[in-house]
C-alpha cells in the first residue's frame, strides 16, 4: 500500500521524506563531505572532477554546478545538507533563500523586515 502523503500539495514546498532521501542520498552525502576543509579545497579546485567521485545522477551534478537549489531539492537534496554548498561559496542562508524564490537578496531581506511572506500568498 502506498504511504500517506498529506503534504503533497503544499505550494512551493518539497517535503524531505523517505522517497526524497533515497533519491538524494549520494547528493546529500557529497554535501556532508564539504564539512572538511580539505574536501572544500578540492571541490573548489575542480568542481566537476570532485562531483565525479560521487555516484550521483548527471542531473544532480549539473544542478550543483549551476547552484540551482530548487532543482537540487527536486532531485532529493535537503536544505540543511545543501547549506554546505553555499557555505563553501561563502554565502548565507538568506542568499540561498532569495535565490530559490527568484528575488534579489535585497528585495528578499526587505520582505523579511516587513514581516515575511504572507501565508495567504499563492506561489
Amino acid at each position, binding site marked *: 500500500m502506498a504511504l500517506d502523503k498529506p*503534504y503533497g500539495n503544499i*505550494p512551493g514546498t518539497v517535503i524531505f521524506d*523517505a522517497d526524497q*532521501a533515497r533519491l538524494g542520498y549520494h547528493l546529500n552525502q557529497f554535501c556532508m563531505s564539504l564539512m572538511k576543509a580539505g574536501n572544500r579545497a578540492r571541490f573548489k579546485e575542480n568542481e566537476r572532477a570532485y562531483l565525479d567521485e560521487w555516484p550521483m545522477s548527471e542531473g544532480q551534478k549539473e544542478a550543483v554546478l549551476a547552484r540551482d537549489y530548487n532543482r537540487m531539492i527536486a532531485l532529493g537534496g535537503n536544505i540543511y545538507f545543501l547549506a554546505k554548498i553555499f*557555505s563553501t561559496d561563502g554565502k548565507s542562508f538568506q542568499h540561498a*533563500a532569495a535565490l530559490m*524564490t527568484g528575488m534579489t537578496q535585497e528585495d528578499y531581506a526587505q520582505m*523579511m523586515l516587513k514581516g*515575511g511572506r504572507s501565508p495567504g500568498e499563492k506561489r
Partner: protein
Amino acid sequence: MARISAGVATSHVPAIGAAIDNGRTAEAYWQPLFAGYEFSRRWIENARPDVVILVYNDHATAFSLDIVPTFAIGCASRFEPADEGWGPRPVPVVIGHPELASHIAQSVIQQDFDLTIVQKMDVDHGLTVPMSLMFGQRASWPVRVIPLAVNVVLYPPPSGRRCFELGKAIRRAVESFDEKLDVQIWGTGGMSHQLQGPRAGLINREWDNRWLDGLIAEPESVAGIPHVEYMREAGSEAVELVMWLIMRGALDQRVRTLHRFYHVPASNTAVGHVILENSP
C-alpha cells in the same frame, strides 16, 4: 531528589549566533531581538539550574543520512561545538552530566521510549545558540547540559503527541534520580519559517501566537496538531516546534508564564521565546 523547576523555549537561528560572535547585537537589526532576552539572562542568573536538558535538532552536522536517530540522548562528559562549514563557533565546550543522562536513558527506555544513546557527538547551532541567548558570552558555561537531539530533518519527525509523552517520561526519570539537582528542560527551534523553495520566507504571526497560547494553556490539544498543519501553515521548517512539546510535557499541567517574547525576523525566521515555571 532531582526536580524539573522550569522550562525554556527559544528559536535557535544560526544568524543569531553569528551576530553574538561578531559583536553585532547592538545593531538596529538585532537590538530588538536581544532586548527580548534581557529578562531571561537576569532570570537564569538567579535561578542557577544545575543541569539543562536541552532538546534541539542536529542540522546535518553530527548525523548525516548514514544514521538518523529519532531521539538521541548525549551521555558523554563533554560535547565539542561543531564546525558547520565555517569553523566552530567561539563558544565554550559543553559539559555533560553522564550520570543523570544515563539514568534518564535507562528510565525512559523502560517507559517504552527507545532513545539512541550517544557518547560522541559534536553539537551545532541548534544547541549552542540557545546557550548563548540565555547565558551570553562566557569563558565556560555555568551549567551542565544533557543534549537531546530530535530528528526533524527527515520526514516524519516524531509526532507532537509522542514528544509530549516523552517529556512526561523524562520528568518521571528526573524525579527518580537520588541526587538533589535543579533541572531545567529547554525546547528549541521554530517558530514559523521555510528555508527552501519558492515559498521560502514564509512567516505566520497569527498561527505562531495561537500555537504559543495553546502550548501554555492547553498543551494536550496542541500535542494533537499533525505535522502537515505545521508545514502548511507555518512553513516546512516550522515542524521543529514539536520539540517544544517535549519541554512542555515535562512541566506541570498548569504553569506560570514568567516571560513571553515574539519577534520577526531573524534572518528567515520568526523567533519565539517563553519561560514557564513549575509550582515549587
